[in-house]
């Protein structure tokens, strides 16, 4: 019934020649990247290689200096684009969760749907309860974020992003701030999302997780895409010397 074969694959996101500087510091020096629908891309690279900046640029949280970002055929980096309308289609989850501390879990999750999508409170809460239950957070709906563990907070942050029913989800080192024993619960949530077909770009330091979940792994180095390909190739048989060096350092740090 559904179309199969190459014709069914559509581009969720296309990035061309993306440049971004902070003052005199050039963080992104011409990024090209195409993400297909339902594809999971893992961004790896050293701190400062531009992973977070790339995600923030895609979400239009940072204005870009040059290049194009095209979301499902629409150039979102063009002048005159309604940024607020674009952002609701792109979910982002931050390393430090960034939950709203003055609101209950439920209100954190329903804020976007109610205020942006103008969904009724009852409908938004019903949707939120369903999502919270799906990720094992049903009993936390009335808690404030500070009373939750880091892993729970990060799962709430993911649910908050999902409540907007985004076309694509950006995950910015979402397990880096977590205690080691809490990492798995968050990674499992992401695995489930990948299985459900969510298009995702995941900046991560978890190499084994990247190998496990990614359709392609993208190694960023000094603001450029140094190497991109299937995880088996990039992580096991890297072609680029810089990729090899990076993986060697990760290996020495015991993270592979």
């Amino acid at each position, binding site marked *: 019934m559904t179309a199969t074969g190459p014709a069914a694959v559509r581009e969720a996101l296309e990035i061309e020649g993306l440049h971004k500087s902070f003052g005199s510091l050039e963080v992104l020096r011409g990024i090209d990247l195409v993400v297909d629908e339902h594809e999971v891309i893992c961004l790896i690279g050293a701190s400062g290689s531009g992973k977070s900046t790339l995600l923030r640029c895609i*979400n239009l*949280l940072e204005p870009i200096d040059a290049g194009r970002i095209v979301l499902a055929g629409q150039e979102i980096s063009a002048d005159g684009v309604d940024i*607020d*309308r674009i*952002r*609701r289609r*792109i*979910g*982002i989850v*931050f390393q*430090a969760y*960034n*939950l*709203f*501390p*003055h609101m209950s879990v439920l209100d954190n999750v329903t*804020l*976007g749907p109610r*205020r*942006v*999508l103008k969904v009724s409170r009852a409908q938004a809460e019903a949707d939120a309860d369903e999502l919270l239950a799906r990720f094992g957070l049903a009993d936390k709906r009335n808690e404030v974020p*500070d009373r939750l563990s880091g892993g729970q907070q990060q799962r709430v942050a993911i649910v*908050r*992003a999902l409540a*907007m029913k985004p076309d694509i989800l950006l995950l910015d080192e979402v397990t880096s701030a977590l205690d080691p024993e809490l990492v798995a619960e968050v990674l499992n949530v992401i695995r489930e999302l990948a299985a459900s077909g969510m298009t995702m770009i995941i900046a991560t330091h978890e190499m084994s997780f990247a190998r496990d979940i990614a359709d392609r792994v993208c190694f960023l180095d000094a603001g450029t895409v140094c190497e991109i390909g299937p995880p088996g190739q990039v992580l096991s048989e890297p072609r680029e010397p810089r990729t090899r060096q990076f993986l060697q350092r990760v290996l020495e740090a015991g993270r592979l």
Partner: protein
Amino acid sequence: MTSVGPPIVRRRRSRISWRATAIALASTVVVAGGLAWVVVNAPGWAEVQTDFLNGPIFWASLPGLIAAFGKNVELFLIAELLILPLGLVIAVMRGLPGPVFFPVRLLATVYVDIFRALPGILVIFILGFGIPGLAIDGIPNDPFFWAIVALTFIYAAYVSEVYRAGIESIHPSQDAAARSLGLTRFQSLRHVVLPQAVRRVVPPLLNDFIGLQKDTVLVSFIGVVEIFRTAQIKEAALFNFTPYLAVALVFIVLTIPLARLTDWLVARDKRQRTAGSAR
């Protein structure tokens, strides 16, 4: 062994706290007693007693003063209700980003600069005498009206700075999280940034509120008959300063509980924040 430890420690601690209390008490008695001795033995003590601490005059003037204090209460309650939203609007205006909003930012900045620079009594004089003096049709010349306007303008400048500090204390990641959901700049401010900012600045806002309460006596100079003006009238009639002391007492009774409440809120806020950061 271990079960013996705690009682000894507790006994020692209680002995220490007893000693501390005793020392504090003794030093207070010495200082207060010394001061009292100096005052009572001052050459003018007898005159001060009749002119400032006159019991019969105190009790005779107190009911009238308390009645007049109703005007002060009216002044600071109405003014505070106007100050809180106006200060917030000014603070938000000062925080609007981008070149488009430059005139708005400039206006708000100039407003705050001017009203913080001017002594309050000057603002009260200028507005209270100057504007009615223009005799423009439809502009009220009621001193009470201009008293409210003057106090509101003065304190809105201070309060806007308090709000601004609160807004700036909210980490930009909160705004980023809100905007990433598609909330507009205004929605993010309204639902995410301001609720947190305002909660943080409740103690300094209360502090300014106490300042406002005291400054209501300044509007007596443009002819509002409130507690201070009433005390002046009584003083002039009786050639006795005791009514002023009664006024002082009224303000102390009003402000000290508010000051304690502020301290308590600050302490609670600090406790909550340290509890949060310990996690």
